[in-house]
């Protein structure tokens, strides 16, 4: 691990003020950052510890929205009574991710910024445009079984590994960030960037900007929600394909539908194509299959991850079946 200076911030203003240059990293749970610092993939010159700045509460706002502090741990968010009752897709997604120990450490803000598990990104001996811009992509001709099939570019096919982000995409969460110029709000759909020709730029966060909150829209009381995660083992494994569903059905037809996918996209993948194929259509298997086909129409598999196309389709259809069969 490289030498760095360490500063403990007492509040958000101090944290933002201490983030003086682009080599500064905020450290919260540390589960991604320290892992990558040990591999010399992350080499910050300065760490600003934000664990003592507060922002660790969950608050229901007067208009019904739920405001989650950036430092709320994944386990606390998953087990929060309001999240379990009103946003079960988020609770399910969080509990499907990592291990109990890691969920006690990992934070809401940190999970939003979780880095890819692409083995070439994690290995400094290999070419990787995300880690070292312009060095090439070893994954495209390499071991790409777990990598993305949606939103890829000729420069990067790295998968966004988060489960939480997929649920937040289906729930249309809004992210509040604070920088030296003030605060701003960013819709989750606009927060993560496609790799394109600049895979090292993963979000719209500016240098020194700090995530302070994630806000969920008011609960949809009649909605059925499901997070379904398919993976190589039953637990403690990243998704090969996952689906987050928020659905409302009236008179046998979808009156509201949000579909987001994990494990297959270079960013948390909201599927407007699937939603268009479902809205106002009968909630039956034929429709589910149409939606699944639509969601994967633009899939671009690599040498070893072609199986993900059919896997993701079945994941969507199965998740929709589960959601619509809920009492």
């Amino acid at each position, binding site marked *: 691990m490289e030498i760095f200076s360490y500063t403990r911030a007492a509040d958000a203003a101090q944290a933002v003020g201490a983030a003086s240059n682009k080599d500064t990293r905020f*450290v919260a749970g540390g589960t991604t950052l320290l892992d990558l610092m*040990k591999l010399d993939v992350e*080499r910050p010159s300065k760490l600003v*510890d934000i664990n003592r700045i507060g922002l660790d509460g969950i608050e229901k706002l007067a208009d019904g929205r739920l405001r989650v502090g950036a430092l709320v741990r994944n386990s606390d968010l998953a087990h929060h009574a309001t999240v379990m009752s009103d946003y079960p897709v988020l609770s399910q997604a969080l509990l499907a991710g990592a291990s109990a120990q890691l969920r006690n450490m990992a934070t809401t803000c940190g999970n939003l910024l979780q880095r890819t598990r692409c083995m070439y990104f994690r290995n400094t001996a290999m070419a990787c445009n995300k880690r070292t811009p312009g060095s090439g992509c070893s994954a495209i001709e390499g071991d790409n079984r777990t990598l993305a099939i949606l939103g890829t570019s000729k420069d990067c096919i790295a998968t966004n590994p988060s489960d939480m982000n997929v649920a937040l995409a289906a729930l249309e969460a809004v992210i509040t960030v604070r920088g030296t110029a003030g605060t701003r709000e960013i819709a989750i759909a606009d927060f993560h960037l496609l790799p394109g020709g600049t895979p090292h730029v993963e979000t719209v966060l500016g240098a020194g900007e700090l995530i302070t909150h994630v806000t969920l829209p008011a609960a949809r009381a009649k909605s059925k929600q499901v997070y379904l995660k398919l993976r190589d083992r039953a637990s*403690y494994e990243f998704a090969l394909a996952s689906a987050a569903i928020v659905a409302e059905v009236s008179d046998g037809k979808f009156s509201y539908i949000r579909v987001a996918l994990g494990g297959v996209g270079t960013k948390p993948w909201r599927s407007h194509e699937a939603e268009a194929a479902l809205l106002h259509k009968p909630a039956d298997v034929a429709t589910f299959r149409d939606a699944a086909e639509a969601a994967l129409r633009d899939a671009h598999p690599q040498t070893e991850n072609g199986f993900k196309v059919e896997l993701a389709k079945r994941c969507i259809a199965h998740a929709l079946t589960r959601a619509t069969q809920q009492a």
Partner: protein
Amino acid sequence: MDGKEKALDGKSTGGVTRRSFLSQIGAAGVAVTAAPLVARADAQATPAEMAATKTEKIENAMRIKLSVNGKPVSLEVDPRATLLDALRETLSLTGTKKGCDHGQCGACTVHVNGRRINSCLTLAVMHEGDSITTIEGLGTTDNLHPMQASFVEHDGYQCGYCTSGQIMSAVALLKEPCGPADADVKELMSGNICRCGAYPNIVAAIQHVRQRA
């Protein structure tokens, strides 16, 4: 010469110090080479005495105060030291194990303020004022924690390397939301890997304690 080496040389007299050499090897190398020497030098000392008598100069050291197994401890640590390394190398509490050092195996599981975490993925300097419990703080050989006794009774290990992490996880699990079934226990214990494959006995040991609670 990479950036790290330059930085170290800039702060020393120009030569390669023992410390900078060990830093180059990395944490895993230090664990293998330094731990037995440290432990042997002060085998009878309490953790607090160990910290007080340690004379080796640590570059860029920071002082932190925390509680370990109910005792106040004041430590000088390299900001890069993980909580795991501080426990093992500085405090000689070697019951907590280093397995993968990347949060993938759970051998390093300890409790921080009553919650289980992977001590390999957190820096010691991040734990000012925290209360840490390690396997050494659970029970003694004459007075085992019920979970330790249950692991013995159910033969919940073979080589034993993962056992302290398994037990720290299992004790934390008792206070977490967890369904009654074996499958629920397996899910919440999935962050602790056992290469010997003692899983059925581990689950039995945990269920035994849960059912008697």
